């Protein structure tokens, strides 16, 4: 199956948060619907997202889901790589939230 790649650069307003420089998190692979990689990258306060998915025609919805996630969590200087396997927009949003919660837990340890 041909895979579709999308790239977005999204910048939240105000003060943003990132991850430690040397840290990266690969999230929620066990679910079978998607894999999320989060890491630090100097982007002048913006977030960069790369998505690989078999689904085409929903770029606009992807962008909205990601914008909401990045704005709500005030993420900046962050690189997100998403390998998707036919997730619905809600599952994407839920996996992102779950990955971020796990990432923050990981940072505490």
């Amino acid at each position, binding site marked *: 199956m041909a895979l579709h790649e999308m790239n977005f650069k999204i910048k939240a307003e105000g003060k943003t948060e990132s991850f430690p420089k040397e840290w990266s998190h690969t999230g929620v692979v066990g679910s079978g619907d998607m894999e999320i990689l989060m890491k630090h990258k100097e982007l002048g306060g913006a977030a960069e997202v790369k998505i690989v998915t078999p689904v085409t025609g929903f770029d606009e919805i992807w962008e*909205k889901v990601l914008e909401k996630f990045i704005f709500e969590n005030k993420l900046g200087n962050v690189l997100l790589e998403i390998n998707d396997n036919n997730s619905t927009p809600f599952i994407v949003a839920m996996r992102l939230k779950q990955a971020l919660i796990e990432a923050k837990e990981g940072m505490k340890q």
Partner: protein
Amino acid sequence: MENNKVWNSLKRDRMSRIRAAIPYVKMGKEVAAEDTVSLLETVIKPHDKVNIEGDNQKQADFLSECLCQVSKERVHDLHIVQSSIALSSHLDVFEKGIATKLDYSFSGPQAGRMANMIREGKIELGAIHTYLELYGRYFIDLTPRVALIAAEKADINGNLYTGFNTEDTPVIVEAAKFKQGIIIVQVNEIVDQLPRVDIPGDWVDFVIQAPRPFYVEPLFTRDPSLITDAQVLRAMMAIKGIYAEYGVQRLNHGVGFDTAAIELLLPTYGEELGLKGKICSYFGLNPHPTLIPAIESGWVKNIHCFGGENGMENYIKERSDVFFLGPDDSLRSNRAFTQVAGHYALDMFVGGTLQIDPYGNSSTATESRVAGFGGAPNMGCDPHGRRHASGAWLKCGSENGIQSQLTGDLPRGKKLVVQLQETFREKMAPGFVEKLDAWKLAESADMELPPVMIYGDDVTHIVTEEGIAYIHKCASMEERMAAIRAVAGYTKVGLKEKPEETKELRRKGIVKTPEDLGIDISRANRSMLAAKNVRDLVKWSGGLYNPPARFRNW
């Protein structure tokens, strides 16, 4: 006054038909299976109203196939009145020109072919009903002249044992028999001694031992291994934001994975929230295998069943405190009575749907399928004839945003009608749409009104992954539409959401997000389920549940 008016023409007609069939009767009321077609040609007349027992689950499939083989010269223009159009033979009888008119309730598996046949003019559609409406009309203007029914066992005098899958049989027989109709039954077995009598023999005219047992569909078995994390999240939200919030004790669950998830979360999440004994004690419900863990954990006091469910026979037999059993210890189901209970004795209906429009109307109709209604609208409506109070009903009514505009200063309760909806289903089909497909179907099938499963003014709660909209609290249509947009996610309807409106609705408690409900979404996963697969259900049942072969994947 004239004295020569005949007042018993139906009875005379009935007697003449029965007499004509005498050559086919062997012992008692028994007719040989190979004489069935001839029997039908003899007792059915053109233009008769005929019921072929097609229930949600049980099917008089042998009699239905035989009806397709009668001579069109002798039997034609039948008006079929039956609840479910489930088998291809139910439509073949129209294709062959034996029947012309149809009044029914539900046609799940045949919905696509039915739509085509209506368009081609092969079926003249009377109306699509809810079960209770159709049963009601059996006694008023759609009384069957001949009913072709199905039972498990009979004796040669026509006494019937319908047992576990009684379903619609009593209501069909009651209507047809007492208006001088003719009852023909196919049974799996003719025996000397019945386990119990469900239908007395003098209500039955002809008994046929079918060459194979009647077909019955396991409609209510949901494999827990197919439940998704999103369904677990919606289930957690429903339990905390609705079941617990209103203390709902008496309810019905629709078919589907969302309600299966709720059933499987009762012994885990429900227990954790301290809800045992406070919610979910009484059900009007088919015997859902996914309810076994909650029953075994002592949650459920009572279940009355519409029908049976394959594999649940032995389990039910051993749980007579919970289910309704005959003197022989097997389940007695009865769809008409559970439907009545669902209408008047339950405080909540919870179910899924395909499409919800911006006003909150919901429908499972699509342009190419005439699926019908079944019982959901009877469960999923606020019965205005209700007069007894309960905590959940009173609380929901007290929150009704327009009650004072309807009854002034008089309080009134309201039934909880909950729609669980995924904002996008498989293949990105949206769960919220600007216009229901039901409109297009109404046009293409020339229906008088779009077939809506649940009207917006009956719906009280819509649960999506985004949140719960308590739409009965809204004081205007505008506010209701804003609440629906707020939970409609990234669908076209949801994208019109205005953040400042949603903020206000959250402040008023009309919209609650998982965060507002105090639900940690990172916990929303399958590990919360009390049973993760069918094998776990068997274990919970202590080996009493015996799942159908297709669900045995270990």
